[in-house]
């Protein structure tokens, strides 16, 4: 009963919020927060329930709506609800002066609702329906700002439709073969399916998830969409929506097919998982270095979203205890810190009046300290510095790769991390360190309502970094559900039998070393802050902005790597588009604009038909 309540509150809340917006803006804001808060509370309530299913028969077409809650869906549902709540809180201040707010809140709540629907639906049809609602409302919200955003939204929806159609094909095929759409029933039928059919199902369905999760050849929609969406929604997009691909892959690979079948899917040494691994590795390296040469703060984060997806893929493809745990944990971690970082980028955009080019920023550390700390913690999590949650999951993934004898994949992951370090430092440095431009001398710290989600997420990053046992326990419940070996965990990490990791020791070690470093700097600090004087060149005044040394950060390195970073996939699609346009241009010539020719076409067709009729 509680699942349908969640769905009703989620969808109904969206509509009620929209209607309330027609009455007054304040009521709408309160309702939006209340609805998302209620969702978080309700979803927290169903934690620890065993697998439960609810059956409803819809009054038309005799369709069945099956809702299902299990650890996997709970895991994703709590992420969705949590990030949804935070982004709504954040939008209260961020979106204050924007237009069409009713539409904005409605669509945001609607996307949350449909994402919840996809994770708690127990049959493939309702999964597909919620998925489509999600795609379309996401499209509407990406193109909210107009202008370039419309093109970005269009890019997204085209790719998304391709994926959805592939998924529909799978669903129809499964239904016509087995006569049911319930996931558990299909899972039991699929155990006896032939290898070819299984491969067909797996590849076709994963097309959709690969697109939504933006893995390498199909990633082109993501950077534009993330950069052009409004910041609170970018965080939802990047943290939650994109990870629905991981959920779908997990659902099809492990819940429906299971490990036994997956191990059988290989031709020679190429197996389904190895292909996915290759995709993940390419995604990591390519995205990390592309992020390095970006100059737009949100675009950097968008490319990092692409790259981090590769780690998750590398984690969950290896069905070992540590790999699976690492992958799933990375989903959670990435969601937390990327939401945080998008909030940071949004706060800066909000205060500086829409500046996203990081070359124009700098020195904001004095003006926006809270934001700076949030950004620092977020970037640390992204890089995987110990004491942040990213460290634990990346550690698990590296461990899997090394122990599983995959040196190339491990190398790719390391290279990706180096790239991450570089662009993370660039992000922090160009925005917060260095010289403060003249025009930003008087900007203020982000408003309190925007700080609140950032602080919450910052605390969470540290909390899960020091006490990784909390989320790891949930994740091991997921593994138990799909009959994979769970990872043994303690509150502070991983016990000795499963491979030692104890964050409390790391914490003390780091605290002590920090203390020592602090002492050293205290004693041996040589740098003295000086005032920058006006400077003149050939007698004329040189503006201070010209000395802004954060411009062209990593210039030699970017020059070196840029030739290798040509986005082959994107170029390929562009060429397809151009080719189609050319062909259509040629075809278009039949419209000569003269009636006689049109009549001639008709008679030509008639003659053609008669010709066929007479001779064949």
């Amino acid at each position, binding site marked *: 009963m509680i699942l349908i309540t969640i769905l009703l509150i989620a969808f109904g809340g969206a509509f009620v919020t929209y209607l309330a917006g027609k009455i007054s803006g304040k009521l709408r804001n309160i309702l939006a927060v209340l609805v998302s808060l209620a969702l978080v509370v309700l979803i927290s309530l169903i934690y620890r329930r065993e697998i439960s299913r609810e059956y409803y028969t819809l009054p038309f077409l005799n369709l069945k709506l099956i809702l299902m809650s299990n650890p996997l869906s709970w895991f994703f549902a709590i992420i969705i609800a949590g990030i949804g709540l935070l982004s709504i809180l954040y939008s209260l201040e961020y979106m204050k002066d924007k237009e069409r707010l009713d539409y904005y809140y409605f669509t945001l709540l609607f996307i949350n609702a449909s994402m919840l629907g996809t994770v708690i639906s127990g049959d493939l049809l309702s999964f597909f329906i919620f998925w489509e609602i999600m795609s379309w409302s996401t499209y509407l919200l990406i193109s909210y700002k107009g202008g370039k955003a419309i093109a970005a939204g269009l890019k997204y929806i085209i790719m998304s439709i391709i994926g959805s159609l592939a998924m529909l094909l799978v669903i129809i095929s499964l239904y016509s073969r087995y006569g049911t759409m319930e996931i558990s029933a299909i899972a039991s039928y699929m155990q006896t399916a032939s290898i070819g059919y299984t491969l067909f199902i797996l590849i076709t369905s994963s097309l959709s998830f690969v697109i939504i999760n933006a893995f390498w050849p199909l990633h082109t929609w993501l950077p534009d969409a993330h950069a052009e969406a409004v910041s609170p929604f970018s965080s939802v997009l990047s943290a939650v929506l994109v990870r629905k691909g991981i959920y779908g892959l997990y659902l099809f690979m492990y819940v429906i097919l299971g490990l036994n079948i997956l191990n059988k899917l290989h031709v020679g040494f190429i197996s389904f998982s190895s292909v996915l691994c290759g995709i993940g590795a390419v995604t990591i390296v390519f995205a990390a270095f592309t992020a390095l040469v970006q100059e737009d703060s949100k675009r950097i984060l968008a490319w990092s979203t692409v790259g981090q997806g590769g780690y998750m893929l590398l984690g969950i493809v290896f069905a070992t205890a540590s790999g699976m745990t690492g992958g799933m944990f990375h989903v959670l971690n990435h969601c937390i810190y990327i939401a945080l970082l998008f909030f940071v980028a949004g706060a800066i955009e909000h205060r500086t009046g829409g500046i996203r080019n990081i070359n124009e920023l700098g020195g904001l550390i004095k003006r926006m300290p809270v934001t700076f700390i949030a950004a620092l913690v977020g970037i640390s999590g992204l890089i995987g510095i110990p004491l942040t949650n990213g460290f634990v999951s990346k550690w698990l993934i590296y461990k899997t790769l090394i122990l599983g004898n995959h040196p190339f994949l491990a190398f790719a992951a390391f290279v990706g991390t180096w790239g991450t370090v570089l662009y993370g430092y660039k992000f922090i440095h160009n925005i917060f360190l260095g010289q403060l431009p003249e025009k930003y001398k008087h900007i203020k710290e982000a408003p309190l309502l925007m700080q609140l989600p950032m602080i919450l997420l910052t605390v969470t990053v540290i909390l899960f970094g020091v006490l990784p046992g909390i989320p790891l326990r949930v994740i091991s419940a997921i593994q138990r559900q799909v009959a994979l070996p769970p990872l043994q965990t303690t509150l502070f990490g991983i016990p000795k039998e499963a491979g030692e990791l104890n964050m409390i020791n790391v914490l003390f070690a780091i605290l002590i070393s920090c203390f020592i470093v602090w002492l050293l700097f205290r004693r041996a600090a040589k740098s003295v802050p000086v005032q920058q004087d006006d400077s003149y060149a050939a007698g004329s005044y040189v503006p201070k902005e010209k000395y802004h040394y954060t411009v062209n950060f990593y210039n030699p390195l970017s020059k070196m790597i840029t030739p290798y970073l040509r986005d082959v996939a994107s170029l390929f699609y562009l060429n397809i588009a151009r080719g189609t346009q050319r062909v259509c241009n040629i075809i278009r010539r039949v419209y000569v604009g003269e009636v006689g020719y049109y009549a001639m076409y008709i*008679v*030509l067709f*008639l*003659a053609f038909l*008669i010709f066929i009729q*007479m001779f064949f």
Partner: protein
Amino acid sequence: MRKIISLILLGIVCVGIIFALYSIPFGKDKIKVGKHYIYNGIKETGAVNIVTSVVLNYRGFDTLGEVTILFIAALGLGVVLYGKKKKRKEGLEPASLVLYTGCRFLFPLILLFGAYIFIHGHLTPGGGFQGGAIIASGFLLSYLGCPRKWISKERFNITESLGGLVFVIMGLIGLTIGGYFLSNFLPKGIANTLFSAGIIPILYCAVGFKVGAELAGIIYNMIE
């Protein structure tokens, strides 16, 4: 070049049609549904002219649609030609006295002939469409002969609307009485007399007025 291509294409089509026509021999009895109308037409509708009974009774609803198409075409014509109205009348030469008198003499006769044709639509060849066309040609004649006596556009509109209205109302009355649209609810009378065939003469009168006003309106619009 273009002529040659069209001739070749038309030749191919022509050959195809010649082959197709072998299965439709000329003059043979190929009637299927028509037989029913011919045998039962008088009994069922009371109209002697079977074509009339088909147009207004068996396929009456189609005729309503057809009249609507006519109306829409006239409307479209009015819309397309709407715009600056030149005062052409001043530039026109007045007709000669013979023509003027002849027109004034013939005009009522033509109207009478048209009315005769559509009133006797169920007895003799002819009917609303033909009668309407004749009336419209009468108005054309009156324009050619005595342009200053031209009837104003509003009267055409009113007549035309009334015609359509009568048609629809008759249909609706039939719907309430007979159970279907345009059912023949009036007494059939004796065949081959003027007051027979139920609602058919009324409908044909309505159609005659409507078509006449419509076509006259089209001419009016084209001339203005």
